[in-house]
């Protein structure tokens, strides 16, 4: 009798343990960067967990470069530390092609894939397979001070040329009043100065590689673009421009020290936010400048969510990223944080909403800029690579960082433009030869 009781008790405990392990929530670890849209997504975790009580979300927020290094290490070693990775348009096609990411197929019918901008989907795909779902997307545009333009009798066209930008900068540059004609990225890095300089080079008719993957830095197009950039920013930019990135220029513009700024469209939200900008009501928006062509003059970037093949919670992870990039999520953000905070640049429906267009004065230009950017056709002469402000090949990150340092050096005056471009040509040739795109 006693034995039976013990047996029953043991069985009951065992069954409870089995039942609770079966009911235990699946943990989904998300690696992400710290920016406004991501922070809001983290803030809405509980809403997701209410909808899917069998999934627990765990967040690992890291600085962009650290996150890249961390994710690359994890994915290359099949570490399986992350179930969802926040990656960009540069990584998605490369990692997808290597078989590191789960293809985004069989999404729920109400996901409404047709609502997402085709250029954004194209940038996150490789050979027709989508590897990540876009969380938000951005292009680049020109921000300018309407009050200063008006006071000086100037008028900003819908899409200025770089020559016009220089002429405006010349007239608005008053360093003695701490008012600088133009602010541009100068800080070295493939995602810093090289993002802007590549779009400038595109506008000047240059390209990173010819059809045979040979770099073209010693050609007249690059020479014109980089000389123009150094001259423009060196003469009409703020002091120490070679160490200014997005955040430094944002701070300068917000404090009223820049007359013009060409940078990411997402800056529009910060510049028009009265809690952090002293010139919030004076901001005008135009497309990124063109020169000999408008092709590739505005970049295209998207932060997207992907599921690595090493994840042991792929289904749960996919459920999460489908939710976080859905129209329902945009609706939730609108209800919780206000319509101006809806993740921009990914869905047509966002821009069909008149309330959004009213709340976000930069939205129309953002839409136009994203529509103009085509990663598959971003240069005047044909190029073998995909990407507007980058070339989606694994070697690009290292090459562009080195080239970025050289151009930043030229801007700081430590070397001539000619010297910087010759060195850039030599470095790129060496790296591409080493990567066996061709032999010597």
């Amino acid at each position, binding site marked *: 009798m006693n034995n039976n009781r013990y047996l029953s008790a043991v069985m009951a405990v065992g069954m409870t343990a089995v039942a609770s392990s079966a009911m235990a929530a699946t943990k989904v*670890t998300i*690696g992400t*960067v*710290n*920016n*406004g849209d991501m*922070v809001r997504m*983290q*803030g809405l975790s509980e809403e997701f967990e209410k909808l899917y009580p069998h999934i627990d979300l*765990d*967040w*690992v*927020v*890291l*600085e*962009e470069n*650290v996150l890249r*290094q*961390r994710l690359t*290490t*994890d994915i*290359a*070693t*099949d*570490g*399986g*530390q*992350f179930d969802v990775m926040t990656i960009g348009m540069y990584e998605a096609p490369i990692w997808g092609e290597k078989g590191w990411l789960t293809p985004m197929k069989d999404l729920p019918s109400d996901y409404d894939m047709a609502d997402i901008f085709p250029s954004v989907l194209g940038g996150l795909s490789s050979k027709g397979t989508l590897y990540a779902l876009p969380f938000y997307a951005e292009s680049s545009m020109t921000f300018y001070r309407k009050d200063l333009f008006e006071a000086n009798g100037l008028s900003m066209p819908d899409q200025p040329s770089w020559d016009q930008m220089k002429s405006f900068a010349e007239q608005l540059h008053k360093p003695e009043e*701490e008012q600088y004609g133009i602010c541009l990225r100068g800080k070295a890095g493939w*995602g810093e100065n090289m993002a802007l300089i590549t779009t400038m080079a595109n506008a000047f008719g240059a390209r990173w590689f010819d059809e045979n993957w040979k770099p073209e830095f010693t050609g007249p197009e690059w020479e014109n673009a980089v000389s123009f950039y150094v001259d423009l920013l060196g003469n009409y930019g703020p002091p120490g421009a070679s160490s200014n990135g*997005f*955040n*430094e220029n*944002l*701070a*300068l513009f*917000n*404090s009223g*020290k820049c007359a013009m700024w060409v940078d*990411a469209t*997402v*800056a529009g939200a*910060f510049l028009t936010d009265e809690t*952090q*900008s*002293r010139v919030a009501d004076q901001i005008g928006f135009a497309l990124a400048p063109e020169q000999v062509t408008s092709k590739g003059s505005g970049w295209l970037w998207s932060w997207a969510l992907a599921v690595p093949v090493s994840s042991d919670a792929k289904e749960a992870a996919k459920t999460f990223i489908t939710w976080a990039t859905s129209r329902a999520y945009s609706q939730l953000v609108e209800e919780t944080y206000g319509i101006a905070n809806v993740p921009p640049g990914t869905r047509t429906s966002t821009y069909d909403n008149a309330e959004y267009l009213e709340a976000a004065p930069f939205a129309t230009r953002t839409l136009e800029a994203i529509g103009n950017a085509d990663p598959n056709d971003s240069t005047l002469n044909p190029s073998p690579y995909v990407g507007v402000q980058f070339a989606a090949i694994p070697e690009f990150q290292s090459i562009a960082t080195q080239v970025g340092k050289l151009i930043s050096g030229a801007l700081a005056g430590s070397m001539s433009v000619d010297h910087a471009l010759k060195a850039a040509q030599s470095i790129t040739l060496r790296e591409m030869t080493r990567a066996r795109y061709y032999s010597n």
Partner: protein
Amino acid sequence: MLSLKQRRSLNTLLMGVLAWGVALAIFFPIFWMLLTSFKTEIDAFATPPQLFFSPTLENYTLVNERSDYLHFAWNSVVVSFGSTIIGMMLAVPAAYSMAFFETKRTKGTLLWMLSTKMLPPVGVLVPIYLLFKDTGLLDTKTGLVIIYTLINLPIMIWMAYTYFKEIPKEVLEAARMDGSTLFQEIWRVLLPMSKGGLAATVLLSLILSWNEAFWSLNLTASEAAPLTALIASYSSPEGLFWAKLSAVSTLACAPILIFGWISQKQLVRGLSFGAVK
């Protein structure tokens, strides 16, 4: 012409000014971080930098809302103290052996151990990562304790060795003559005589472990991430973040600063009352 007394006074004054200058230069970044943590983002980026502003606690409120500070702080405490305790348990016998039973290879071994500190950590990132993955140590406090112990061990052995070398061999021989076992010799004679130096070693190991960022960022995710990972999470590619980053950095530095301040008194007392004069 200054008299000898006047010259000495002037020297003392100059040394005092120099010492204060160095101390202020070292302390200034911490002071500025503290100040920035009470600014708004726009004030934090103001040029010229502002010394006077309307202070706000909004950055601390935001950090408190967004992050589980205590979780990260607890991880920092466990891995720093864990690695220091294990490190001392290994360093003391190793240094004892090298200091009192020196061979012709002792100096070479010490230099070799120290040379491992010169290896760039990123060079061994992938092998260590794979090792941790295969042994299930990724994102565990145990894994971090092991790696921190190994990183700090050469310095801990060197420091302990230096302090042990100051102690005359004869003192230990006398203890042995009195019938002490090896354990008693170390525990009752050697450690009390070198407690000031060992306290410094412990403190240094704690500070190094607390501040370590490379391995903690690369080997942890959500479970074992210490305060250094929390700091990194506040840097933003698009958007102003210096004030928030300063607030979280202040919160991360505070425990070890307070601990260092308290132990400094113990450390000085330990050194003053040490047997080695």
